């Protein structure tokens, strides 16, 4: 993919620390959303949430039911 040299500014709000410069060809909506998350993609975020919840559930089961 040929990257454009042209840059535009997007609003990422207080949590995203104001504005950021990105390539004009970039998917702005996606980047705005990612600027408000520590994860690089929705899938990574969901998978991490799921895994952490399963670990939590397992630990809760150990301490409240199985021990």
């Amino acid at each position, binding site marked *: 993919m040929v990257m454009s040299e042209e840059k535009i500014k997007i609003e990422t*709000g*207080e*949590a*995203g*620390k104001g504005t950021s410069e990105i390539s004009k060809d970039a998917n702005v*909506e996606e980047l*705005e*959303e990612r600027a*408000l*998350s*520590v*994860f690089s993609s*929705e*899938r990574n*975020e*969901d*998978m*991490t*949430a*799921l895994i*952490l*919840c*399963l670990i*939590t*559930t397992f630990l*809760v*089961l150990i*301490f*409240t*039911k199985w021990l």
Partner: protein
Amino acid sequence: MNQEKSNTPLFILGGIMIVYALIASTNALLPLMKYLHTHKTLDLQVMMGFICGGLAIFGAVINLVRKPGTSIFDRFFLEPLPGILFLLLMAMAVRWYAEPFVIILSDNLAPVIGFKIYKVLNLNYVVLGLLIGVIITNTIGIPGFAASGVKCARFVLKMGVIMLGARYSFAELAKLGVYSIWLIGFFVLGTVFLVLWLGGLFKQPKSMSGVLSAGMGVCGVSATVAVAPVVKAKSEEMAYTIGTILSFGIICMFVFPTIGHMVGMNPVQFGAWAGTGILNSAQVAAAALAFNAVDIKTLKVAEIFNITRVLFLPIIVLVLAAWFGKDTGQKLNFKTVVIDKFPIFILGFLLLFIMSSAGLFSPPSHYKGKFIDVSYNDRTRITDEEWNVLNNAVNEGSLQGLTESQMAAVVDLVRQRQIAGNFDERDNKKLFDKTGRDRMYELEAILAAEKANEITLDKDVKGAIKHAIKQVHKKSKTVTALTDFMIWFFAFGLIGLGMQITKKAIMQAGSWPLVIGVISGVTKAVLSFFVVLWLVKDVVLK
């Protein structure tokens, strides 16, 4: 972000938490905690203080001894840690101080103003958390060190939605008749499509209509969080949806019981109507109790109708994924919608729901971790003194005004010293369980009749019956712990979500979402009113 710079906030946050835990562990705060009714969480407060404070110091020390990098450990632990701890500190302040204080304050104000503010405005940790987040961001602004942690808010909210699945079980759903499930499904989907249509009519952004439709169709916070990634909703749109739903619920809490009484609805009909028409679970419970504080059936029916809506969540996510994809011009097929677009965390919600229904956390027929155990069990017996009181009352014939079945339940309680099925039927577990539950309902009805001044009960007899009922009501420790995690995830996530909402964003959203919310909410309430009156007779629960 320069991690060396973030060390001071980490040390300060860690210091605050450890000092708090130390003070709490000396019981110095116990009188205050008792006043706020949070003393039962003393051990948790101490433990969380030490663990979180320890983590802060650990992170700060690591920052001191090693150079900042771009590893996963840096990106997902060291960088967001100050922000995460900052949000957590505020979540603790909301759960242990702000929420109990608001409850006590509104209890004290109730005799003067005539109502309890926290109940009417639903000022629980959800609203307080959001409000505090919004206030911070629009006054002092998000502190620089916390920005990275605030970005974890949506992620943690998703964890809250996954945990929500553990609270429900298929057995509760199965208790509803087919009629009721069709009724709930019709209103959930109907409201979603109505809001989407109204959103188009009032020229609202697709993301706003999408998230509002889920919120209005299913229920407040969880549905909003679940659908937001599918329709690419912004934080302020999520907050606006939650706000709209809660404001509409406040009106319903007053209007529903009044109309219910005016048209002479029976307890089951009102429960079904409130459970269908009101969105927020707490407001459903408040309306049911306002309509009939005596008959437990109203609340039970309302709650079951309400939770069944939550279980429509995955279907709504699918519907909205298809709608959003189609409206943004993407070519959609089954694979795109179900596999590519379907959020993985909703699968997590389903997974926990399946685990819960399979009885992994609690007996399968539990409801929010509560279940009834009418099996032969020494722990469900009444005391010898209570038995004597009941035995004398039965022999002397002092129990007046009871129905035949109520009297039979008391006689059996005396005979078996606990609420249970028939000894001869103990091999048929289903029948044994049903008989036991029926006896418990009869005993509950006796207490309800006494509360309504229909009969008079001796204080000791009442106490014995109350204790017998309490003995068979069990609570799963596992579901309670998982629910606690869910509450903490929501409290943390909502404060962070609130911090992403600026005044400018709220002004931009305007009042149209509120208008759409009110139109769809009123339509749903009116339609469900007639349908419930027409379809729901006395028995909707098996």
